[in-house]
């Protein structure tokens, strides 16, 4: 397990909440995030990350975690 930094398009609300809208994947593919179901602080000793974990639902009901720590977004990779 490791992590991979990714580009994310977000919406910064006037209440100070950051909501990820699109994940930019390989070949500049823009993948829409349908819904964020949970946000909580999490860490993983195996993958080597720590930060806020966003549980996101993508098209086709695929669930993936996006992580946010000190201004950077990343995903877990196998």
């Amino acid at each position, binding site marked *: *397990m*490791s992590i991979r930094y990714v580009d994310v398009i977000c919406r910064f609300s006037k209440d100070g909440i950051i909501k990820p809208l699109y994940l930019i994947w390989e070949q500049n593919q823009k993948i829409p995030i349908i819904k964020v179901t949970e946000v*909580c*602080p*999490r*860490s*993983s*000793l*195996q*993958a*080597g*990350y*720590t930060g806020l974990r966003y549980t996101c639902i993508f098209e086709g009901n695929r669930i993936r975690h996006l992580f946010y720590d*000190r201004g950077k977004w990343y995903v877990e990779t196998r």
Partner: protein
Amino acid sequence: MKKVILHCDLNCFFASVEMLHHPELRNIPMAVAGDPDHRHGIILAKNVPAKRKGVKTAETIGEALRKCPELTVLKPDYDSYLYFSEKVRDLYYEYTDRIEPFGIDECWLDISASISYFGSVDRIVKELLYRVKEEIGLTLSIGISFTRVYAKLGSDLAKEDAFCYIDSLDDIKDLPAASLLGVGYHTGEKLKAYGLYTIGDVAKKPLPYLKEILGKWGESLYCYVNGYESAPIPKYREQIEEVKSVGNSMTSIRDLQNMEDFKIVLSVLCDSVSARVREKKLFFRTVHLQVRTKKLEIRTMQMRLKENSDLGKDIFNCAVALFEKNCDFSVPFRSIGVSVSSLSYQKDGLQTSLFEKEGYSLKQKKEETAIDTIRKRFGRFSVSSLRVLEDSGLSSFIPRNDKENV
């Protein structure tokens, strides 16, 4: 009702933070050490595999590499450590508002008032351990007792990611006296000379006896050992930060062989200390100088000025006088530290000496304030004294705010 105090200690903090970012280092010996090129090469923290190989904190990188040639040595990243330290403290803050930090990785928490809300001490402690591990990715040792000193002993006894209760003196009476907070090598030896080997031995002695052999410190030790403690743990972020001394120290890139070398490094340190004193609008009365020789012998000296001052020139002259009086270059020096104390605010003008011709110089003050302003706008190296330019290698360090005793 007895207080409940937790001492939370992050296990090998620097190394844990590094492992969090580099999980591949988790199973190989790794240590965080100062910069070897600048001769700050001592081990600051190590992980468990390195510990098994016998690597110890505070030994030099060379010694560590001899014991464990495959050791991976990383440079420290203080910003990251401060970030995590703050994050952990914010988590503690969800359980109590009475938090007293002790260094970057340790804290005392008074949870007496939160127990009824959360249910039990056990639950708070287990939740803390779980959440710090799950949410931040670090592990804790927690000591639980009714005074700070006992709680600290508890966290020393507890294993990684675990906790330890200390309910009374009986639990710790067989531990060596040197494991107590504040008992270092010298006090430990002194106690041994009087036949006091364990904490139990010390606890049996009456207060006058301890006062007799250790002086004022004996009184504190008596309270520590017997679990008497009066000072409550202050509310987090409401602690009054009264600065008692301001100082900087530096291990130079090469040994200081003569007075010129010494003055070059000293003038940079004095500049920095005096600028910091002025920034806080303070005045000092006492100047301390600490030098460390190549053989790692430390010598400290201090001198009281005739009047209060906030000038770098006064620190410099004082330090030079102290040095000339007490030291010579038979053994070269590897580090110098300068600090000032007896600090005071002077809002209502300055009392100058009536009888000294060379008293506090307002002209000098203007000069140094001007330099401060220039440096603030254009950077540390925009203006320096000629002496400093003579050997740019020696003087090209930037003293950090590394010592500010509160």
